């Protein structure tokens, strides 16, 4: 009887993964355990109305870079957290590109307040480039506060994307090793 009950629970009560969380690209590049865990993250992202493609790409990136399965799952989970926070800071009407850039900025050390501030400052302009410039400056060794000060100052002046790129070129010498 116990076995029958266990079988019943196994067959009928285990929540199936949504069909759209099963990406064939993952099946061919990840082992089954890693794929299952990544697909669970994708399901969570869908529930939060977050784009899943950046998460799929992060998993594929890890596979191509030879990362072990647990590392891939951890990176995808970390990106989910960053995307979720970026969505909190930037709002639900944010594009996928802006969320990705926001996630990179948060990963680099930006706070939710900073991300929210750049959205309000550039209510009519894109935030992907300013956020990407910030992440790049921090990656280049610039302190978070200093990088943010430069980016937010230009944002408040209404700088366009070209000016943000010039800012990056000015503050981070060309050819600097990543």
């Amino acid at each position: 009887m116990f076995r029958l009950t266990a079988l019943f629970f196994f067959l009928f009560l285990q929540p199936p993964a949504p069909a759209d969380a099963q990406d064939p690209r993952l099946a061919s590049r990840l082992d089954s355990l890693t794929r299952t865990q990544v697909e669970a993250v994708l399901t969570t992202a869908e529930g939060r109305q977050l784009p899943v493609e950046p998460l799929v790409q992060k998993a594929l990136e890890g596979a191509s870079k030879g990362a072990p399965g647990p590392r891939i799952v951890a990176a995808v989970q970390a990106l989910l957290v960053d995307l979720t926070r970026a969505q909190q800071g930037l709002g639900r009407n944010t594009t996928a590109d802006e969320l990705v850039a926001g996630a990179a900025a948060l990963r680099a050390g930006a706070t939710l307040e900073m991300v929210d501030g750049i959205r309000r400052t550039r209510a009519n302009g894109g935030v992907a480039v300013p956020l990407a410039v910030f992440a790049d400056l921090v990656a280049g060794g610039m302190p978070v506060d200093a990088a943010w000060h430069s980016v937010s100052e230009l944002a408040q002046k209404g700088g366009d994307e070209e000016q943000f790129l010039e800012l990056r070129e000015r503050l981070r010498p060309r050819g600097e090793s990543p």
Partner: protein
Amino acid sequence: MSQSRDQGARCLAMTSLLWRRVATGCIALALALAVPASAAAQLVGNIDFGTGPASWDQTDGRDQLLNGAFGAGYRFADFLGLQPELTGDFGLSSRPAKEAALGWNIGARFDTKGTDRGVWLGAAIGAAGSGNQRSALTTLEAGVRRALGPARVDLWLSRTGFGTRISTGGGLAQDSALPDTLVRRGGVTDYIELGSRAALRLSRYELGLSVTQRMGSAAIRRTGWELSATWWMMPSVGIVGSTGHSLPEFGFTVPSARYGTVGLRLALGARSQVPVARGDEAEPKSSNRPMLSVADRRLTVRWAPARTAEVMGDFTDWKPLPLAPMSEVRWTLPVALSPGVHHLNLRFDGGAWLVPAGAFAVDDGFGGRVGLIVVR
């Protein structure tokens, strides 16, 4: 296999007549040109033309030895997450008083797709010998590789077996460095080799060290090594100098030798199809990493001369994609990027994945960095 292709290069260096080397090289070049390099598959390998002194490890080494060898591989598109490669080697040698010996093998190799580390398995079949004294041979090989920045280290184990016992009757194992006792006991049926190779590529310069230990009975237990330095004058043409101690080539009638050579090395694969534009020859200045630019959604890269340039990113589902050469120092992605944010990495000559200047460098979550670009 890759190991024997390297040995082939050494054998070429020991050739004593220039015309033979040139003839062998021409065959190789013809093959290289006949097989088109595409985005999905490419010819790989090196061809060496060289000369230098050799001191044979044999007592009757006054015979003039003619020897030529060619090895190449053809790399196919990914298959089940593996990188398949078809390999082939061909060798020829003769002495004035002996019948010419011929050897060949064809094989397959599967390499895992990891960029910084990986393993491979390979197998090859072929034959070697002279006249009616020929023997089938089979080779099994397994290895691991690891890239550390500009350096790469390979370690492999291989077993080569002969279908028949190599004897003194013909030219199959005419290595007089082998003790007579070994031959009288029946010769060689197989041997196992443990090989290692380290290479360091810095801009146009490449240093290589390989050590191969042949294992088995005391008579065939030998250690071979080679130290080489290459200056790549052009992406596919380099000047190479090497010194080392080769192992006897059973079946090719080539005994072991100490040698030193200087020669020309031609690299197969990702050859530039476009003439070098004036002004493009200079290495990008004030930059220690490649320079990326995107105009009209077209991605272009400038870097020091390299044989191959590859990109992988979210627009390739993170599969390495060869960039099309525009000149010796410029490459382009043959397809337009879609507007939006993209992540990518670049690598040259199979080295480490880099973030190019011109892309935002952000944490990739795997202990490295990935480039972020915004395409309009």
